[in-house]
């Protein structure tokens, strides 16, 4: 097995740290990153950007994306600001690399379709980074559902709540992020519902506000979304950045699924040892459990090596994006909005 070259384009998203760490630990994988727009905001590893972060993680670095792609990577992981995904996907595809793109796929429908086109034209795989569906608890839920234990599934209720991201300001800047809590946190749950029920979203209703972090956020910080699917399943998602700044953990993700056979609840980040710090009085929540990123990256790297198509692919990325865009339109119009279907490809 020859060594695999994996390039990481941009460290704007905090997930770049985890991905580079996991990739660097994989046997037979060489990692090199580039973050030409990044400026460190402090000394901690979470605040480092650019070459300083690459050095801290012990991975290679290139000063420009051109130099990085000239290295000839087999695969590229894109962890830029959401609005810059398209440009980097187009660069990576043109360089012939398979791509894992951070979620959400894009911030506009036009960008999402252009990215699908770029990957198809270059004949490369475009996978979207939805790590939570790789959790063993989700595999168990999917198995239970497919074995018929849930019976006829009718409803999903999900909450993906987090803190307002602090070390990366762009999350709350709609120009770079494509919005607020809706675009950040609807897609993980939408991805898992997509995988579970294999049915197209039909209509979306969403309500939001900016009551939390009103001074810091340029977009909605709380959001609630109802989705109806073609097969009649309904889903309700709370995507709010509603974890207080003082929380001992970033947030979490829960899923409640119900059908004629009963219910399953999954608390993806739930297992933890709990305590209290006598110094600060704040709660201690020491979480444990497998790293979902590792399982996702294994799948991506296996797919690159084997040439097999991996899920979640660009079509899942587009379907989840279509829900977010409908939710944003619902908020703008106060209406329930039909979800735009992915059009047939014009090439490939």
């Amino acid at each position, binding site marked *: 097995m020859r060594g695999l070259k994996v390039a990481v384009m941009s460290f704007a998203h905090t997930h770049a740290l985890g991905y580079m760490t996991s990739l660097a630990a994989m046997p037979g994988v060489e990692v090199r990153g580039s973050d030409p727009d990044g400026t460190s905001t402090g000394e901690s590893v979470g605040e480092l950007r650019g070459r300083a972060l690459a050095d801290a993680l012990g991975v290679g670095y290139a000063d420009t994306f051109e130099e990085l792609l000239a290295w000839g990577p087999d695969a590229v992981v894109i962890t830029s600001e959401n609005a810059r995904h398209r440009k980097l996907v187009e660069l990576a595809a043109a360089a012939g690399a398979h791509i894992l793109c951070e979620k959400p796929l894009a911030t506009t429908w036009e960008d999402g379709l252009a990215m699908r086109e770029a990957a198809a034209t270059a004949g490369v795989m475009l996978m979207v980074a939805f790590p939570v569906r790789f959790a063993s608890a989700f595999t168990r839920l999917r198995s239970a559902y497919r074995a018929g234990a849930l019976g006829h599934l009718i409803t999903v209720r999900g*909450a993906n709540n987090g803190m307002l991201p602090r070390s990366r300001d762009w999350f709350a800047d709609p120009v770079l992020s494509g919005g607020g809590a809706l675009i950040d946190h609807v897609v993980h749950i939408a991805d898992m519902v997509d995988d579970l029920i294999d049915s197209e979203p039909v209509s979306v209703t969403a309500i939001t506000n900016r*009551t939390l972090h009103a001074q810091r956020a340029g977009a909605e910080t709380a959001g609630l979304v109802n989705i109806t699917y073609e097969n009649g399943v309904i889903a*309700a998602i709370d995507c709010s950045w509603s974890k*207080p700044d003082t929380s001992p953990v970033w947030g979490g993700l829960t899923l409640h699924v119900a059908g*004629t056979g009963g219910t399953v609840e999954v608390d993806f980040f739930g297992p933890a040892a709990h305590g209290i710090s006598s110094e600060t009085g704040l709660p201690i929540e020491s979480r444990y459990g497998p790293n979902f990123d590792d399982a996702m990256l294994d799948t991506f790297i296996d797919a690159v090596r084997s040439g097999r198509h991996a899920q979640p692919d660009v079509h899942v990325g587009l379907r989840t994006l279509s829900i977010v865009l409908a939710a944003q339109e619902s908020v703008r119009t106060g209406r329930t909005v039909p979800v735009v279907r992915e059009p047939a490809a014009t090439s490939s």
Partner: protein
Amino acid sequence: MTQHPPRIGLVGAGGIARAHLPNLLRLGDVFVYSEEGAPELVAAYGGVVVHSLDELLARVDVVDVVVPTFAHAEIVRAALAAGKPVISEKPLALTDADASDLVARAEHAGIPLYPAHVVRFFPEYVRLKQAVDSGLLGDLAVLRLSRSGAFPTRAAWYADHALSGGIIMDQMIHDLDMARWLAGEVVRVSAVTAGIPDADNPVQAAHVLLTHASGAISQVSGLWGPQHLAFTTEYSVTGTLGCLSHSSAAERNYRSDLAASEAVDGLLPRIDPAEDPYYLELREYLGAILGGQVPRVSAADGAIAVAIANAALKSLETGQPTDLPVLSEVLA
């Protein structure tokens, strides 16, 4: 009012009567009238069976209406016409017109009318209300409230949308009322629903989104699941200064692992008999009727809860959110 213990008339002998009657017996003498089931109910708990509504109204000081939903308005109207203070199960009525008519009649006659929104008496919700009112959570931003249990198959009328209003009007009205109690008036409502109307194993679910006048947003979720499903509730409320959440499945002071399993009740929530919310509710209402403090639920609260539920039902019909008229119009 009187020197003797209050004479309470219970109209109806269905499922919720079993939560009311034992508590009413702690508060006064109880007379039960029901088209069916009164002798069995009284045999199980106590009280006196009477054989007509007129006889009941002639013999009691207060009426507690626990008939099926579709009959609430008629019985409440009769009790008010007889000059009797009324406690009515929720929903106060099925239609906005009936609900506001009952409020108006009670108001004009100066007779108390209290809708039994019992969740306001459950201790975990009382804690939440206290946290909100004391400012502990700051300005409310986002609320999630959910309620799950078995599909009520004990009486056929629950499954008939025209008679019960379905899961939104029957079950979710508790959390619709709670959301409004916590975050204030509701200005826009939308809903989605899904279900399998299987005769042997029906299930129904709905999600309702509320926009409050304050700007706060609420998600209310209801599930009538398969028959084995235990009754559970959850809430998660976040404001500018903090958050509070609760899961009835997680918070327990008693866990057992017995060879002979204890019965699971999928229809009513698990309650602590030493702090029975139905008792606290009936005691507060009866106390108010006997001249005590104004209770935490008003007739208008009941009518507005019905209006929110009907706005959700209208949203299901139109496929679009429903704007809720301002309070005064709801009660016009």
